[in-house]
């Protein structure tokens, strides 16, 4: 029972972080960059394992942020070449980094406590067993604290630079004209994406993070009327996905992270269906009133 609560709490925090950061990715039309970073972060994690000869949270974070920023920067640099378009350069970089990560895992299988399974699914079911022990007492799962720290970092960064991010998302040209350093805030956002991905890695693996980044934020994009409400909606969709997804996983005995991602998608499709129905209704109503 206690372990269920830890799993749910970790998943909720991870999903919330992803949703908040995802809102800005979706608004800035950089969902694919988010996809790319979440793949590249794997290489950062693997390298940090190899360099530190084992698991170290700080090294993982540093490695992940470096690889994430490197991905964003290389993608931008390559796409300046006249023969390469933006999605080509993104696609090339993240597949190469991810491939290198997977190959390193398979070559150094004995030395890295990671396998292809956890890259894909995450290991949220095992989260409760890896606990932090402080002063002789168990303080709860390590992944939970990591997710909590990253969530708090994300919330405070967004709160502090809210206006800058808003300007960058809605009026990038105006932002430049006003003297806002767009590259700097862009880098900050990419660092947030990398941090969020690495905190989510234990829980949901490298690939399903994309679902949590993009899907709740897109659902929120459909219903929200302002940036603030979009953030709130995204958080709401994320929490609902976690709760329903966990129920689905228990019911079908399927992977928890995958089920959460599936429920996020189901909620998005339900939102679209609902909106389409309302649209049809109002069209009918207006046709009827014209006929009278």
């Amino acid at each position, binding site marked *: 029972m206690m372990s269920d609560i830890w799993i749910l709490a970790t998943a909720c925090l991870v999903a919330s972080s992803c949703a908040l950061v995802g809102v800005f990715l979706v608004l800035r039309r950089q969902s694919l960059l988010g996809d790319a970073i979440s793949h590249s972060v794997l290489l950062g994690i693997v390298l940090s394992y190899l360099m530190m000869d084992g698991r170290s949270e700080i090294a993982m974070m540093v490695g992940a942020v470096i690889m994430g920023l490197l991905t964003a920067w290389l993608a931008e640099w390559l796409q300046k070449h006249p*023969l390469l378009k933006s999605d080509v350069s993104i*696609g090339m970089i993240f*597949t190469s980094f991810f491939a290198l990560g*997977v190959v390193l895992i398979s070559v150094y299988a004995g030395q890295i406590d990671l396998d292809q399974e956890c890259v894909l699914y995450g290991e949220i079911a095992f989260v409760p067993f890896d606990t932090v022990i402080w002063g002789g007492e168990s303080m709860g799962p390590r992944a939970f604290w990591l997710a909590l720290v990253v969530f708090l970092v994300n919330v405070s960064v967004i709160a502090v630079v809210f206006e800058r991010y808003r300007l960058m998302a809605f009026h990038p040209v105006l932002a430049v004209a006003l003297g806002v350093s767009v590259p700097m805030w862009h880098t900050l956002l990419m660092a947030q994406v990398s941090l969020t991905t690495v905190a989510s890695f234990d829980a949901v693996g490298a690939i399903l993070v994309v679902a949590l980044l993009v899907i709740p934020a897109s659902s929120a994009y459909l219903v929200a009327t302002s940036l603030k409400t979009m953030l709130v909606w995204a958080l709401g969709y994320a929490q609902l996905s976690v709760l329903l997804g966990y129920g689905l996983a228990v019911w079908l005995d399927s992977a928890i992270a995958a089920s959460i991602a599936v429920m996020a998608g189901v909620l998005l499709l339900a939102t679209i269906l609902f909106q389409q129905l309302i649209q049809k209704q109002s069209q009918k109503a207006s046709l009827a009133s014209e006929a009278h």
Partner: protein
Amino acid sequence: MADWQVMSADYWALTLSFWQFEDANALWVLVGSVLLGVSASVVGSFAVLKRQALIGDALAHSALPGVMVAFMLFHTQSPIIMLIGAMVSSLMGFMLMSWLPKNTKIKPDAALAITLSLFFALGLMALSYIQGLNVAGKSGLDKILFGQAAAMLPEDLIVLSSVALAVLLVVGLLFQKFRLITFNENYARSLGLSVSLYQAVFACLLVLVVVIGLQIVGVVLMAAVLLVPVSAARFWHPNLAVILWVAAIIGGLSGMVSANISYLAPSAPTGPWMVLVLAGLFLLSFLFAPYQGWFFNRIRANDKDLTDDE
């Protein structure tokens, strides 16, 4: 690293026996990988030039649930059934990806990421569900995530190779039409070409290539085999036909090397190795290709400076 040095002699012996075609199964793996590399790079070339580079990524991820559902329904891993399942769900992914931006506020890039991650999650969920079931023949299903060429049977490889050949044949026959539509869609339309028909044919070819690549390259990294060869080839020559040939050679080479690697280390995932080979070939082209490579561009720029000074 020590293991590698000790075993390197064995690796040489194995490589030698691989290239003397002593192992019939390995020969089929080689044929399959090369044909896959060639057909994926040729089809991928058109996708990249049409600015649809990452569509293959989404299609490959979308194939996963189809394969899993096909297994749940028929309890077999026969290649034909898996191909059909993968095709159906890839096409569904393709439809969702094109429907979303047209009918909702969602932008194309988000639509791609949504489709990719949603279908992939569905596939993983189905896979974990199957692994909890008590059915025979479920082992090896997870190999389509990262590909494992060495685990494939000659029968599967014969099916895959014939599909790859058929795809190449269709591209060869329709090359002129595809070129016209890729570079000048409106002109093609004004000539009375049925652009939407050819686009549908092309979408099917793309799905086919992705689907036959699943077991060799895997779902996760299929995109690289589609888009890296052509991106590298563009540094060699400006002409489309030449680009396609160069891309095909690069794709074939990467297939060859990865078949060799999967012979040496049968349990290693093939896809990531193939992508690393491709990345190396891209880097080589980016730096040293004669047409637009960095090195020759640099030399030409220097020559130009010198003549300007005179």
